């Protein structure tokens, strides 16, 4: 684009820089609110972790931390895909079922080698993601219904593969796949490294590519995005595909970690993923969000779970109560911040 140099006078607003914006005071509180929204979850995570490590001897031990990290990895991968979907203003309820299906497919395929064990779940779950995306973007159906249908369908498919859960496929010890799930590098489990790599890539894609810009634009104002030339339909199809792929991959890695395709996994996982994403500062209404926040959200859920487990006297059922209460608090705080910033 060219910057035209004409001798048209600089107009009034240019002499008073603050003219075009709101008063300076509100700009500062805006920045503060934005900071809280983006990093509030991280602050809470740090505080909760510090309190826990002072309160329980067994919290800040190497074993406990690596265990928490590994068990967080699978949910985190699912939440990564969910972050993209939610930023476009959508929702993906099928990821829990895809996670289970991915695990079973990986275990079933492992007898044909690691390549099949990884590619099969990716292909099937990715394809279901594509179908989700097509139905949402092209047929303009509500994401909630489309992915609810996919959730039921994928769970059914998984049950069919395992004779209603009677068959559990095992992953042979010592295979590359088992190593991928169970082995560790530099003291951290391989799934953790894979998760970190995926989040790094996810952050770059979201912040530094055109596709990422389109994800934000579609969620921020779909009609305007279309008028501005953003490929709305393609963007939506891609995010649901990505979500499906990541859910399938997470399932496969989880199966590798457990050495079998466990059929009862993934129930309600979509809700955990959504919780983590929202806790991480992504707006459920779309247009604003961060992958780093989702990672923090997952860790926070895990730490709370771990702390409750540490309090031996507390029934683990309360863990759900605390997680629920926590989510409610976050949503209230976010809504409040959002209203302050006039996002909603």
């Amino acid at each position, binding site marked *: *684009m060219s*910057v*035209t*140099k*004409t001798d*048209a*006078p*600089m*107009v*009034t*607003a*240019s002499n008073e*820089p603050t*003219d*075009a*914006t*709101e008063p300076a005071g509100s*700009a500062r509180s*805006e920045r503060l609110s934005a900071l809280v929204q983006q990093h509030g979850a991280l602050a809470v995570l740090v505080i909760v972790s510090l309190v826990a490590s002072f309160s329980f001897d067994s919290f800040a031990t190497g074993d406990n931390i690596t265990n928490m990290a590994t068990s967080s990895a699978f949910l985190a991968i699912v939440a990564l895909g969910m972050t993209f979907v939610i930023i476009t203003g959508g929702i993906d309820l099928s990821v829990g079922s895809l996670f289970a299906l991915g695990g079973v497919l990986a275990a079933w395929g492992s007898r044909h080698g690691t390549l099949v064990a990884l590619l099969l779940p990716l292909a099937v779950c990715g394809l279901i993601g594509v179908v989700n995306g097509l139905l949402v973007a092209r047929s303009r159906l509500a994401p909630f219904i489309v992915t609810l249908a996919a959730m039921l369908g994928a769970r059914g498919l998984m049950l069919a593969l395992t004779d209603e859960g009677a068959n559990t496929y095992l992953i042979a010890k010592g295979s590359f796949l088992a190593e991928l799930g169970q082995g560790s590098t530099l003291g951290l489990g391989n799934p953790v490294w894979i998760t970190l790599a995926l989040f790094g890539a996810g952050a*770059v894609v979201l*912040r*530094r*590519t*055109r596709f990422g*810009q*389109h994800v*934000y*634009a579609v*969620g*921020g*104002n779909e*009609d*305007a*995005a*279309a*008028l*501005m*030339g*953003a490929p709305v339909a393609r963007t939506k199809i891609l995010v649901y595909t990505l979500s499906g792929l990541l859910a399938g991959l997470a399932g496969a890695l989880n199966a590798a970690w457990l050495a079998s395709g466990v059929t009862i996994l993934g129930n309600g996982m979509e809700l955990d993923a959504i919780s983590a994403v929202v806790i991480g500062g992504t707006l459920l209404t779309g*247009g*604003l969000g961060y992958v780093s926040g989702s990672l923090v959200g997952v860790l926070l859920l895990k730490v709370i779970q771990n702390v409750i487990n540490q309090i031996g006297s507390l029934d683990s059922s309360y863990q759900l109560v605390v997680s629920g209460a926590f989510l409610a608090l976050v949503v209230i705080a976010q809504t409040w911040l959002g209203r302050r910033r*006039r*996002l909603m």
Partner: protein
Amino acid sequence: MAPPAEVLAVRGLSKTFPGVRALDDVDLTVHAGEVHALIGENGAGKSTLIKLLTGVYRPDAGRISFQGREVSFETPLEAQKAGISTIYQEVNLIPLLSVARNLFLGREPRTRLGLLDFARMNREADEILRTYGVRVDVRQSLRTLGVGAQQMVALARAVATEARVVIMDEPTSSLEPREVETLFTVIRRLRDEGIAVIYVSHRLDELYAVCSKVTVLRDGRRVHHGDLADLDRIDLVSTMLGRELGEVRAEGQTKFSGEHLIADDQPVLSARELSARHKLHGVSLDIRPGEVVGLGGLLGSGRTETAKAISGSLALSSGAVTVAGVPLRGGSTPAAIRAGISLLPEDRKSEGIVPGLSVRENIALAVLPRLSRFGLVSESRVDGIVDTFMKRLRIKASSPHQKVGELSGGNQQKVLLARWLAMNPKVLLLDEPTRGIDVGAKAEVQKLVDELAADGLGVLLISSDLEELIEGSDRVVVLKDGAVVGELTGDDVTEDQLMRTIAGEAPPRGTPEEAVTHG
């Protein structure tokens, strides 16, 4: 300098929607470096024309040539890529994204790795926006900017996509006067650079400030085109409204009975200094019982906003409404209804009737809480009220149980009227009560309004139909740009005077209640 090239030529454009001929054989010629005013009242076909030019609609007949080639755009995006950009009334950008990203969305500069080059993007965005008089931190999100600055970003974006024609659809409707000046400076610069601007606005001052050519549409036809300087304001208004000055009938075929007997001199409704950002600037008016006060002015002059402000559905920045001497808590529709104010909204379909419900249910909707005891509705009392109003308003339906959606426009309007009359209001605000209904029904609704006033109701009548306004009202308060510019009383209530007042010429006897002030 060579004569300016014809950049956009529209010939014989027609578009019909079910039941409406929205555009009928319209021509439009726009040259490079010209600011062309496109004006017309509601329903004149301006929006249809713009949507045909920008690929939102496809024409039924006619040709559009752009830069000498015949074009037919399938989508707004195609039109934009070809070089026709549109700035909409509402800013169409993405508020949560940064200013720079909004400016560059879809054509971001990239580094060799294919990643977005934010440094370059922010630098260029800053440079570009400075030429539009906007100095902001381009990294902050767009929504932190004022509407004026957002509009400038939209404009900068539109022009940056190599636009040859920029269509501006009421770009100033939410701008402050100073922001309007900034916009004009930019428009003049675009003009000097050879870009054609099609400027749609109802504000006459603005048209005369920036436009050189004008095309006037009325009822889907082009009724005038030429140099704007050749047309003075009063001619422009009369052309637009389709009323010949001096040929106005001395006495129309009145559907109204003329002057009403005003029983009480104390106003039943008194609105003082109503102000709302960008929309109303200190509007005051009184309505006495039994009086029909007309609210005149062009589209966008603040008529509907005034009615909404009185009925509590538009938030006020200042001002007060009193009903029968009792001050009304502002900004609350339920409070206004309780105080006895009923608004018949302009848009029947979206703000009034519930088409899937029956006549009976629609009429009883608002009054239900008053007819129920312990949450249970007395069916017989509902039947009584429905029966009374169906007879009184002569609502033609097969039974009270017929769905309102199946009725004609006129009868739908009567059902709405019945709903509010059942509330026993003191003041009735009618926003375009006869729009879109057939002639017979129109006369009936007008007669009803007359009867209601005769019964002692205070009525505020908003109408774009000058004849209806003149003949139906005892007084006419004239609005322009959200402020009262004049009031016609007694013998001054004529179409001639009304048009002169709207055009800002020869204010009627007495001084206007509020001077038009801008900044």
